[in-house]
C-alpha cells in the first residue's frame, strides 16, 4: 500500500487516470441502474 502511495506521489499522471476512471465507472454504473429501472417501468406498464 505504501509503495502504491509512493508511486502515485511521484507519477501524478496516474492520479489523474484514477480520478477519471472513478468518474467513468460511476457514470457507467448509474446508466446501468437507470436502464434497469426503465425496463421495470416498461414491464409494469406494457407499451
Amino acid at each position: 500500500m505504501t509503495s502504491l502511495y509512493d508511486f502515485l506521489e511521484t507519477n501524478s499522471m496516474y492520479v489523474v487516470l484514477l480520478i477519471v476512471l472513478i468518474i467513468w465507472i460511476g457514470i457507467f454504473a448509474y446508466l446501468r441502474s437507470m436502464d434497469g429501472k426503465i425496463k421495470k417501468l416498461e414491464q409494469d406498464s406494457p407499451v
Partner: protein
Amino acid sequence: MKNIFTGLTFVLITFVIITGIVLPIPDIPALGDKARVLYFHVPMSWISVLAFFMSMWYSIRYLKTREADYDLKSYSSAQLGFLFCILATATGSLWAKFNWGSFWNWDPRQTSIFILLMIYGAYFALRSAIDSDEQRAKLSSVYSIIAGVTVPFFVFIMPRLVESLHPDPIINSQGKIHMDSTMLTVFLTSLVGFTMLYLWILNMKFRLERLQFKKLKNSEN
C-alpha cells in the same frame, strides 16, 4: 445481447481513458500533451453531428409514416446531440484557454458550433411552444430536417473555408489522415466507444420519452 453491448462500451471507453492518458504520444509542435484532448473532444463533436443526422433521419421517417415513436426518437436524438455539442464546446473552450490564451475568441470553429447550438436551441423552443402532439411532431420534424441540412455546412465546410487557428481536421484538406499509428488506434477506439455510448443512452432516452408519452395519453383518456 444488450449486456454484451454495454459491456463492450465499458471496455472500449475504459481502454481509451487508460491509453489516452498513459501512453506516450509523439511531440507535436505547439500542442504537446494537450494533443491528448483529441481522444475525448473530437468524439463529442462527432456524436453531436451523428445525433443531429439521426434526428433528421427519424424526422423523415415520421413524416413518411406518422408514427409517434419516430418523433420521440428524433426528439431524443436532438437532445443528445445538443448535450454532446455543449460538451464539445466546453472541452474545446478549455483547451483553447491554454493553447490560444482565451476561452472564447470567435474562431470559425467556435462561431459555427455556437450557431449550431442556437439552431437546435430554437428546435426545443419550437417543440415546447406547441400543445397539440400531432402538430408539434409535424412542425418539429420539418424544422429538424432543415436544421440537419445546415449541420455539414457549419461543421465540415465553413471552418475549412475561413482561416482558423484550430488544428487541422482529422481528414485534412488533401483528404489524408496524418496521425501516429498508436494515436490513431486510440482515437478510432474512442470514436467507436463513444458512438456505442450514444446509442445506448439514445435507446434509454427514447424508452423514457415513450413511457411519458403513453402515460400522458392514458391520463387524457
